[in-house]
């Protein structure tokens, strides 16, 4: 990683160690930018929140004073009624502000989350595959995801409460110091002891956090991903797994229970000592105040007031401790978030949108952007534009080396996905066990307009090749040339414009059909229909009354469009056709299709790749044999190349693979000949 060293203290770009103060400032600026009124509401809540309970302990004092002095009705109404009214008013304001700001806070939280997600689309794709980055995303998301446990909540509400309680603390100290400064000092030191005690309690409980999280993860895995999974339901029934899973789950719960018990036992000491101190304080305060009244220093009203103030102290301390905990946790969460938001970008939001969007969260990142020198592709010479390239486009790999060494082989994400997809379709099919180096000084030229097929066993490097080709990956060494020009001289967004690619994982977002095909907010109606027609979907859509404004999937509209597997492939074909880019790339999208559908799809692609450069990958060699050139890839090297006929004549690896697949067909054919 080259960049992302916004704060010099962190060694890794995936870790940030901003202080609590810096993080508070971050959120402050965020609110200021995105919803300044929120800050005013917080200010009101702090002030009124400190004042209201103070009025609350003054009420009984005033009542007693007035009763003792035998005030008349008018005075009673004026003084006590007035203060009472003020109290009611304060409580109303406090109630409306503290409740009312919740939705505002929540929308801000959502804005942070959506900004995080959008950021993940701007960092280089290669980075999003890295284990550290995926973990960082997960942590950042989790830091914001839990409504009232989020980083934003912790820091906003925690800071608010700390300030409120500090003001209260000062108010009460002032009141008490009128009576006796010594008393205030005593109470303060008692509070400090309690603070320290509580703090050690939290520290002591922290020991259990890791193992608690572990148990939680196991419980969630078993219950949500296994028992609750529709996909696993077949196996659970047919293999009678209920008992097995139930036993594991019971084991997890038993351990949880055990842990809770230990936890309670170890926190007990702190709770008891702290409780004893409170008793001591209350009893002492009573005795002392009784003595004062007896001495005639204070009256009955003051007695109530001071006692209220004394007991108030411990609740402030408790609140402050709790809030400090919230703030610290929130700040930790924000450090993940900021680390992610400060990752280097492939292109900035402005570049993509080509216009400023005022008031968006991107403003916050922009402050750090100075330290983010674009993507791994050096952008110094970024002056060329893809419009200047003649079609069809020739692509040259020159001395290209590429390695996955920076990908963590123990990769929970791939695991999750291969476990989910079951059939084992993995994005990193080329890198089964993190083997590392895929290409070493690899050279290849795909001529303009050439149809190239790439074959090879799993793990040969085909998928990696496709990603390098499209500009999803950048080689670590060597260069990739477009019509002889180094690709890095073009802005990456423009490079992407040259490719229509269909990858193994289908991406069919549940937007409007037009949006989902074009992947744009606005589309050309006629061209889009044409693309659907060429993809063989127009008739189906017209039969079913599907328009471009219909929604894909049933999330928004119950009448939404649903397609079968083969139709989905056509949908993706339509997307590639609509884009009509000069280079067409297919990464084995048809594995799950029946033979007729597969051959239809390949025929369509072939038909529409006229005048285009095209690269096909398929396991079924029959689908690729009509290409101009077949490349057999093995261990990151082209071991054989030529037309189908040439390779067959050579009688080596390709021929062997072809034999394996075709033996039966070939045999049948011979028999057929024999019959006739």
């Amino acid at each position, binding site marked *: 990683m080259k960049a992302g060293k916004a704060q010099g203290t962190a060694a890794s770009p995936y870790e940030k160690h901003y202080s609590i103060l810096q993080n508070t400032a971050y959120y402050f600026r965020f609110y200021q930018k995105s919803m300044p009124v929120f800050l005013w509401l917080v200010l009101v809540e702090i002030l009124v929140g400190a004042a209201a309970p103070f009025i609350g302990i003054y009420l009984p004092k005033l*009542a*007693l004073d007035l*009763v003792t002095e035998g005030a008349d009705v008018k005075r009673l*109404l004026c003084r006590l*009624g007035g203060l*009472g009214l003020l109290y*009611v008013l304060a*409580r109303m304001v406090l109630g*409306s502000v503290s409740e009312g700001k919740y939705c*505002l806070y929540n929308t801000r939280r959502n804005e942070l*989350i959506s900004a995080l*997600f959008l950021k993940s689309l701007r960092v280089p*794709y290669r980075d*999003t595959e890295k284990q550290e980055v995926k973990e960082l995303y997960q942590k950042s998301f989790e830091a914001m995801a839990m409504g009232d446990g989020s980083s934003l909540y912790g820091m906003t509400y925690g800071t608010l409460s700390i300030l409120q309680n500090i003001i209260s603390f000062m108010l009460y100290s002032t009141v008490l110091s009128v009576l006796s400064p010594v008393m205030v000092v005593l109470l303060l030191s008692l509070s400090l002891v309690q603070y320290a005690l509580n703090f050690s309690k939290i520290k002591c409980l922290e020991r259990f956090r890791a193992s608690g999280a572990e148990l939680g993860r196991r419980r969630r*895995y078993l219950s949500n991903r296994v*028992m*609750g999974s*529709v996909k696993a*339901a*077949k196996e659970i*029934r047919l*293999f009678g797994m*209920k*008992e*097995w899973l139930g036993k*594991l789950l019971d084991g997890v*719960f038993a351990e*949880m229970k055990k842990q809770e018990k230990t936890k309670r036992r170890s926190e*007990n000491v702190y709770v008891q000592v702290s409780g004893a101190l409170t008793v001591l304080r*209350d009893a002492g305060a*009573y005795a002392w105040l009784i003595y004062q009244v*007896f001495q005639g220093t204070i009256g009955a009203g003051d007695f*109530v007031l001071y006692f209220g103030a004394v007991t108030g102290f411990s609740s402030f301390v408790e609140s402050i401790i709790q809030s400090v905990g919230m703030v610290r946790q929130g700040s930790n969460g924000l450090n993940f978030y900021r680390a992610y938001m400060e990752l280097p970008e492939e292109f900035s939001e402005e570049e*993509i949108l080509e216009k400023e969007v005022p008031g968006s969260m991107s403003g916050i990142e922009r402050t750090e952007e100075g330290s983010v020198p674009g993507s791994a592709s050096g952008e110094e010479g970024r002056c060329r534009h893809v419009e200047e390239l003649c079609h069809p486009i020739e692509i040259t790999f020159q001395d290209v080396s590429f390695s996955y060494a920076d990908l963590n082989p*123990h990769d929970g994400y791939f695991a999750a*996905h291969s*476990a989910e*997809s079951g*059939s*084992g*379709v*993995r994005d990193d099919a080329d890198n089964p066990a993190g083997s590392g180096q895929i290409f070493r000084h690899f050279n290849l030229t795909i001529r303009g307009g050439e149809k190239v097929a790439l074959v090879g066993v799993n*793990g040969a490097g085909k998928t990696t090749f496709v990603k390098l080709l499209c500009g*999803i990956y950048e080689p670590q060494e060597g260069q990739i040339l477009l019509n002889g020009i180094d690709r890095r001289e073009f802005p990456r*967004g423009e490079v992407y414009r040259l490719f229509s690619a269909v990858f193994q*994982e289908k991406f069919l*977002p549940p*937007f409007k059909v037009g949006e989902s095909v074009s*992947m*744009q907010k606005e589309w050309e109606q006629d061209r889009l229909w044409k693309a659907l027609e060429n993809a063989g979907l127009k008739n189906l859509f017209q039969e079913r009354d599907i328009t471009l404004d219909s929604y894909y999937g049933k999330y*928004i509209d119950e009448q939404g469009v649903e397609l079968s597997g083969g139709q989905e492939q056509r949908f993706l074909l339509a997307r590639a056709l609509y884009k009509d880019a000069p280079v067409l790339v297919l990464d084995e999208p048809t594995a799950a*299709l*029946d033979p007729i559908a597969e051959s239809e799809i390949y025929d369509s692609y072939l038909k529409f790749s006229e005048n285009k450069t095209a690269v096909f990958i398929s*396991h*079924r060699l*029959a689908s690729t044999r009509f290409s101009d050139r077949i490349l057999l890839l093995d261990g990151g090297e082209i071991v054989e190349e030529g037309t189908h006929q040439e390779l067959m004549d050579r009688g080596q690896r390709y021929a062997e693979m072809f034999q394996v*697949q075709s033996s039966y*067909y*070939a045999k*049948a054919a011979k028999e057929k000949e024999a019959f006739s």
Partner: protein
Amino acid sequence: MNQESELLERLPFRQRLSHIRATLGILKDMDKSYLPCQVIFCLMQTGAEYGALLLSGYVINELAAGADYRGLMRAAVTACILLGILKAGASALKASIIVKRDLISRRYDTLQQEKLTELDFSMIDSPRLKEMQEKIQRNNNWGAGMYTVFWSVEHFLTGVFRLIGAVAAGIPVLRYLGGGNALPSACIMAGLLVFLFLSIRVWFHYQKIAQYMMFHNLTTEEKKRLYDYMWWYASLEAFRYQNGKDVRIYQGYDIIKYWVQDREKTREWRDYFVNRPTVGYAGTGAAQGAMSGLGVAGAYLLVAWLALAGGIPVGSVILFAGCLANLLEGITILVFEFQELGLASRKQMAILELLSLSEEMYQGSLPMEKRSDGQYTIEFSHVSFRYPGSESWALRDFSLKLNVGEKLAIVGRNGSGKTTMIKLLCRLYDPQEGVILVNGVDIRKFRKEEYVKLFAVVFQDFELFSLMLAENVAASTEYSEDRVERCLQDVGFGERLAGLKKDGEGIRSYLYQDYVDSGIEISGGEAQKIAIARAVYREAPFVLLDEPTAALDPLAEAEIYSNFDKIAGEKTAVYISHRLSSCRFCKKIAVFDGGRLVQLGGHEELLAEEEGTYAKLWNAQARYYQMQ
């Protein structure tokens, strides 16, 4: 029904009560001691509160009466210590209550999922269950699930005890009433109550506004304008990072941004999600603040008034005002919390409905005859089947007989009913028409759990779990190590296993890293092999393979096939594949088209029917190879 959520409609008192009762019933089922502990805790806590109130009243009265301060101090200190002990007891109890809550709530969250493993498969996949799950999710979207219930119960009980305490502690003070000022004080009291009830009404009004956004179901038209995918995408539930490739290549950033972020920029969105609920929340907050403020301020005003007129002792002012404030607060708490508890309980009804589902499939009682000779025949007789909620037949008038040791291949286009047939055979679904017979007996008459033991299945979309390798193979916590290893060897996993034994934990290794961090990574082909090993471990008389090699390259595929004979051996096997060449070891090939069995026979026989589906499928693949 779609317009407004049922959570927004008002329910009769009795019905709310029955929801609450049902919810407390769940609590009781999961932990009998929870509710008693909660009651005792509230009692102790309220007791300590009143103790402190009585103490201050007593002290002030005694001071006013000029009692000896030493005696008074001693009494006060003793009382403080006693109260301290009470409080310490309460907080110890509370700590254990919190632990209980944690465990109950986690167990409760898990109940649903556990239930899913007990239901018919047809239910799991049905629109009805999906609707129920969506409802559960929607209902629990706002609020903290069972925790809301816990809190409400605690508050409600506190309210009850405060009321009782207020009456009990306030009675002695009543004797001071009845001085000349009964009427005005009664008027003030009445005024307070009227104001209180007005505030409650205001509170209800705003609460409804606040809840509108939470519980109102968007209509389709509203969804088109307001719905966004922020959560769904950002949580990576609906978006995998791999999809980022498409977003980049097709420059879809704009449209994604529109659907996850820009929708909030419309006025209507802000009105619905921000402005309106904010008004609602602020209104409820203000009403609540007014009520509790009024309770305290009004109580002191009233009591001071009475004291000045009727001579209540100074100390009793504090006591009486405290009781009165508690009385008023108690009333509001009861009203609020009954409402809260009612709503929180009602949200649990969807879960209770799910938990009360039972299997609907016919449950036979015949024991499965365990034949050591493995002599089984399977017969489909005029079987027709439609998936729940679907209008078209997935399988239509399907008949087929399969004898022991036979190998049947099934071919056909996507959606022609191949997988459906397997699902029916395993009783994941029952056909609507026709019967399936094993040894001449309707399969529904067998005990299901015994019946399914006849089959070892590998599905196209098989699942392995991030659990122990051996347990994955044996599908149980108990397994025979030798047998597990043998099965893994048989399917060609031996090499990797040797590696695992050498520098890992062998068959005790965990797969992937979802369950434990130290789990191992396996490739798609290896996963496939483990799934097949699991089927082999079953030692079942029937082997059903549903296209297990779709994602493999030709060589890996060939490897699996070469092991297939070993796996299937003498057993009866049904094999589905898109690659027709892989059906070669099957004497009998069944060709499906549009849910019907259209052809049945050997390869040559089928190919001879030139217009047949088989010939078409065959030629689509074979034409390339035959040109050889």
